[in-house]
């Protein structure tokens, strides 16, 4: 599956121009981060409004390593992911007892506060201006290979690797544990699951994905500055995860496509209509907001959920009835030798 996608992307990037390559790279970056978030929120049930902070950690780690130590990129990538994973563990432990809006508030503030570290210590982190990142095509590709295409390929490769790894995790015992914790923490604990460990593990995985995405972002945009990691980024990641279909890796792709392509497309339309600058600059914003609202109202299960419904409707009623039958409620019929029903018995709906 992944190989097919890789081939498609390689083909596209050769055919399309440099800007499209850049967009492919952007989408790959977002998919990497959103996939981690959709696992965290969709599978383990923990909302995070601060994964942009993890991206920032990965990006800054990458920039610093390339700048000061000049490591080869694949090594930098692994290290950036590792550093962010550790950060994810720290956050996960701090957040282990938090739920719902309290978790949302804590991660929101994380997303706001962490990038401001760069401003507080400009000596190391380059302050407002940020750090520049130099990334070149490797020698074996020859002199004429466009940088943007290489960036697109590298990003897509990393994204696909991350997706495959996450897919395996989701199917594994770890993934089942996450779902159990998400659905009913108390029941999971009674089943012997270490709830806190599962939750922290989810944060680690999600942070590592975001860290890798941040590393990719660093090499694709060439600049790592606080302005690139505002709270808007974190919110965009969550938006992509929910719009695409929470918990679904395919949904991570759909959502990333939305948050990268819709604003660009609408801006193109606006400028081609020749609208005056203040109106023109804001129409894409309005349109983007409207898209978010409409998708959520029309596809409550996200795009992936909507697609599945359309497909099952297409395949006909047999398919539908097979998927719709849920586990029947146990009906308890008293038999002659059963003890008389105690007046203190309290059951579910009778």
């Amino acid at each position, binding site marked *: 599956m992944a190989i097919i996608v890789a081939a498609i992307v390689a083909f596209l990037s050769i055919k399309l121009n440099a800007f499209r390559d850049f967009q492919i790279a952007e989408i790959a970056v977002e998919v990497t981060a959103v996939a981690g978030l959709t696992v965290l929120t969709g599978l383990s049930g923990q909302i995070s409004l601060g994964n942009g902070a993890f991206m920032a950690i990965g990006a800054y780690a990458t920039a610093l390593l390339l700048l000061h130590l000049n490591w080869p990129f694949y090594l930098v990538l692994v290290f950036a992911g590792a550093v962010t994973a550790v950060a994810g563990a720290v956050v996960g432990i701090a957040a282990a007892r938090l739920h719902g809006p309290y978790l949302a508030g804590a991660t929101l503030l994380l997303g706001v506060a962490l990038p401001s570290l760069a401003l507080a210590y400009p000596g190391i982190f380059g302050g407002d201006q940020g750090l520049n990142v130099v990334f070149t095509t490797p020698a074996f590709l020859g002199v004429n290979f466009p940088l943007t295409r290489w960036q697109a390929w590298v990003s897509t490769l990393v994204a696909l690797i991350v997706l495959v790894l996450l897919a395996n995790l989701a199917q594994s015992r770890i993934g089942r544990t996450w779902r159990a914790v998400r659905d009913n923490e108390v029941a999971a604990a009674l089943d012997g699951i270490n709830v806190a460990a599962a939750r922290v593990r989810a944060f680690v995985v999600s942070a590592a994905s975001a860290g890798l995405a941040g590393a990719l972002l660093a090499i694709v945009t060439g600049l790592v500055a606080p302005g690139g990691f505002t709270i808007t980024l974190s919110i965009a990641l969550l938006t992509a995860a929910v719009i695409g279909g929470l918990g679904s890796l395919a949904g991570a792709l759909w959502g990333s496509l939305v948050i990268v392509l819709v604003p660009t497309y609408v801006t193109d339309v606006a400028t081609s209509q020749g609208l005056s600058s203040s109106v023109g600059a804001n129409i894409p914003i309005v349109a983007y907001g409207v898209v978010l609202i409409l998708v959520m109202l029309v596809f409550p299960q996200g795009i992936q959920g909507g697609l599945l419904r359309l497909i099952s409707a297409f395949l006909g009623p047999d398919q539908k009835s097979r998927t*719709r*039958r*849920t586990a*029947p*409620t*146990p*009906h*308890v*019929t*008293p*038999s*002659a030798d*059963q*003890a*008389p*029903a105690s*007046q*203190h*018995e*309290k*059951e*579910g*709906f*009778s």
Partner: protein
Amino acid sequence: MSAEATAANGGSAGLTVEGLVAGYGGVTALDGVTVTAAAAGITAVLGANGAGKTTLLRAVSGMIRPRRGRVLLADHNVAGQSPEQIVRAGIAHVPEGQGVIPELTVEENLRIGMMSWRGKQSARAAAMEEEYERFKPLAERRRKLASTLSGGERQMLVIARALLARPRVLLLDEPSLGLAPRVMAQVMDLVVRLSREYGLTIVLVEQNARVALAIADHGVVLNLGRVVASADAATLAADVALRHHYLGF
């Protein structure tokens, strides 16, 4: 609640449920149920857990929307309306186990019962005093939080609140649940008085079939969402085979 109040409401009204189909998600809990509760009488709805008794009450009061069938309050079909509308039409539902809002005071809980009124302030105060008369323990605790009430007192509170809605039909879901036998007897006495003296039509869901049949006029037995028996209470109580099979005694 008083006989005058009932008369002012239009007199006693019977409740008829016709071919009601209702459920939750993919599960059908009621599969074509027809029950007639005679005006000013007590109708017991019996059966094992999971038979559909609570679902029936919820479908009547609008908590869940029936998929098919009619709910007739003296010839007026209310199926499909919202709970707020159905309460105004005259059907009050006292759900199982919940009903008291513990974060509010006793008096506030009672005032909620009158939310569907259009009456004047003075009339409301008088009505509330009437309930305090009927349930002395509530009067003693009127300004205390409802969370401080005992189980029996809470049951009184929810019934008082339901009565304040001036219903013509009262749906009671397991009112004896968790109550000491003496308190349960008091509650059952009250239920009888409500129907005999004030003309309320009572539909009583009870796990404890013996107690329910002792005070009911008519009984209906549900199993797996269907009516398997419908007769007057004495007949049902005498049918030993039926009792053993469906009612556990």
